């Protein structure tokens, strides 16, 4: 599998926290993979180039081709404009392909690197060239339409964000509940496919002395504490005490970061 140039890939959108007010959200995506940049800064702040997504020189960081990237604002706008002109409804993208959006559940805090200030500087720098808040205001106006749009474009994580916004105001909204269920199913299937059979037994491959220096949050730390070399993926999911999708995503990230591997 070869890396594709960054310009051919959809760059990720920063995960929007549903609880964050609109005015607190950045209004544009940086033109690079924010998460990959954060990791590379944590691993080697001097060498990382945010524009070069394939320059992951550190062991343990995923290659560009392994990652699922999200559409950016510009592409989303172009797609919306085209769909408004088109007489046919957009076809949902099949799951499992790289075109599916990154499945970060918006309600979870993003793992931070050990040097947040450098990330913030990069984001702020990117924001300086961003378009204005027009798009954000339009999303809030009609979350249901936005939810449907994101779903149809295969942005299941983004659609899930809208689902949570809608259900927070209207818990009885059946359309949102059904859409949320569908999104979770797709995302769970995607992560399950990536992790493989759930009877496989994960193991921690990072030496114990280096555990403290990993770039993970306490939820990932908890999942890691359940990996004991004898419990299968299914058992870890059963005892995680968190929604299955969250646990799958965290486990997938731990595998991606080469913290966990399978026997």
């Amino acid at each position, binding site marked *: 599998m070869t890396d594709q140039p960054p310009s051919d890939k959809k760059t990720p959108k920063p995960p929007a926290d549903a609880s964050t007010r609109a005015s607190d959200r950045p209004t544009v995506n940086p033109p690079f993979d924010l998460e990959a940049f954060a990791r590379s800064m944590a691993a080697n702040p001097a060498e990382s180039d945010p524009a070069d997504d394939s320059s992951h020189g550190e062991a343990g960081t995923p290659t560009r081709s392994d990652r699922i990237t999200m559409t950016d604002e510009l592409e989303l706008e172009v797609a919306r404009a085209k769909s408004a002109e088109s007489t046919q409804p957009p076809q949902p993208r099949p799951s499992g392909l790289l075109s599916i959006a990154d499945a970060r559940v918006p309600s979870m805090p993003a793992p*931070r690197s050990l040097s947040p200030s450098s990330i913030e500087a990069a984001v702020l720098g990117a924001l300086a060239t961003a378009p204005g808040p027009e798009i954000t205001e339009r999303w809030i106006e009609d979350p249901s339409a936005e939810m449907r749009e994101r779903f149809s474009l295969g942005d299941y994580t983004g659609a899930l964000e809208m689902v949570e916004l809608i259900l927070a105001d209207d818990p009885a909204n059946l359309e949102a509940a059904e859409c949320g269920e569908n999104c979770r199913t797709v995302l769970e299937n995607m992560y399950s496919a990536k992790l493989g*059979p759930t009877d496989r037994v994960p193991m921690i491959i990072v030496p114990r002395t280096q*555990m403290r220096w990993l770039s993970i*949050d*306490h939820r990932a730390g*908890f999942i890691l504490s359940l990996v004991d070399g004898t419990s299968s993926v299914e058992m870890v999911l059963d*005892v995680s*005490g968190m929604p299955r999708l969250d646990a799958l995503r965290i486990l997938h990230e731990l595998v991606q970061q080469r913290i966990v591997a399978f026997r």
Partner: protein
Amino acid sequence: MEKVIGIDLGTTNSCVAIVENGVPTVIPNRGGYKTTPSMVAITEAGKRLVGHIAKRQAITNAENTVYAAKRLIGRKWSSPQVKNAVATSSYRIVQGPHADVRVVLREKEYSVSEISAMVLQEMKVIAEDYLGDPVFKTVITVPAYFNDNQRQATKDAGEIAGLDVIRIINEPTAAALSYGFGKNVEKTVAVYDFGGGTFDISILEIGSSGIFKVIATAGDTFLGGEDVDARIIDWLVHGFKEEHGIDLRQDRMALQRLKDAAEKAKCELSSVRDTEVNLPFIISSGRNEALHLQRTIDRPTLDQLSADLIQRTVDICQQTLADAHLEKRDIEEVILVGGMTRMPKIQQAVAEFFEQDPCKGVHPDECVALGAGIQGAALIDDKHEMVLLDVTPHALGIMTQGGYFEELIPQNTTVPTHRTKIFTTSRDHQTAVKIVVMQGESERAEENELLGEFILMGLRRAPKGSVEIEVTFEINADGIVSVHAKDLETSKEQSIEVTASSGLTRDEIQNMMEGAKDYMVERRSSEEFEAAKQEAERIVAEIERLLPQVEQIVATSDFGRDAIEKARAVVAKARHAVGKRDVAAIKSEIDGLSRTQRMFKGVVAKTH
């Protein structure tokens, strides 16, 4: 000969044993552990978890994980122990339709016997997996202070789990059985049982010909190893809060890890002087920075944290000896039962109190189950003559005029037994009397437990006090109480067997049994599917690994290409069978897969 298993259904952990070729043996579970946590949980996906896996998520899924069901089994909703549990348990406890107790998991109500049945079912599976044969008969142990309702509820739990409970025996008796097995012992022993959730002290006389007589028993149902774990957690939480200003108890994931680590540290300190508690990424700070907990705890610290708990056990021992009118010198042996008795400080406290070193010849975690297994073997083996003399833990009697309780059988009377007393009518021209059978130690009937009641009719119309009614209480070896009432003048009589009430009707028990059977069928079917699927996938993976090499070798011949196509077809059929979860089809495809695998291996081997 039919097999009988002995089950120690503990408050926090259970254990199963059997006598094989004359040797009592504890049966390990699939994980290799000889004890299994007595915990049941229902996950968000509706999956039932029992044992170790339930324990691992007991805090993160606290509302839907049941622990210490033994504290509730057979009790009435109005009892103080149930009120205490309602106030302190993380899972929901509600009143059942028969003034009994129910537990709510994922919006569904379960009786306590049903929950205990799930644990017993798990122990049954452990035994069946080990023996390779179905198991039906069992002896289950209960605390010596359990009343008839609690014993009946335990029997019901066994029945729901598909077990024929041939005997209920007391835990200290089982421990003494295990201690005296194979030896010609005649001693007065103290059984000091400090388990995960409860503490019990019992004094027994072991006589010749295998006679075991429980003289006295007492304890605390809310004092156990988990209380010591809680002290360690408090200590860790306090230290972390001082350092970081964060209360780890507010986060369930952190608390789950703390609980597991505290228990592990406690166990380790039984053999080492200090141990490190290391929990990286235990919590995130307000700045989204992950924090770590790393602290060393030593034995003096643990001793200090648990000192008052240990002292409570000693105080109870003191009181029990006094109640039994015994001196310490009358105790010839002290038997330690329960995991907590591994703690050096506890062993020291017991030795100091009883003024002798406790016996270390029995395994504290296993001896009760072993004793139950020994009793089970004795019951089905006609040649074995062993007599267990137990005591009734509570006084038995009837309610009399003015709401008083008239005792017929005192507390700690050896069973089997029977006692008779003469009563009379309390009103003129009374033609019927209601015999209200009760159990307890209070003079006031309302403060004791109602076991049952019946009416003796047809009495001669006469002034009060002139009709004589003979009431006889009888308790058999199983602890079942029968009460007879007889009009001495007319010889009219009436009786009841006090079938203690567990709070479940026969129909309910039958429904629960069906539910338990269905669950087992589904589980076995699922296990069979998983095993077949894994086997098929293993062979498919091997075939696919060899396929490129084989293709290269044989691709030039028609025979080779045909073989490759057939191999692909076999793999596709196997995958299809797995997708349809068709166990029979998977098994039949495994033959074809194995042949293909052997052929591929042969082809590759020939070219190397």
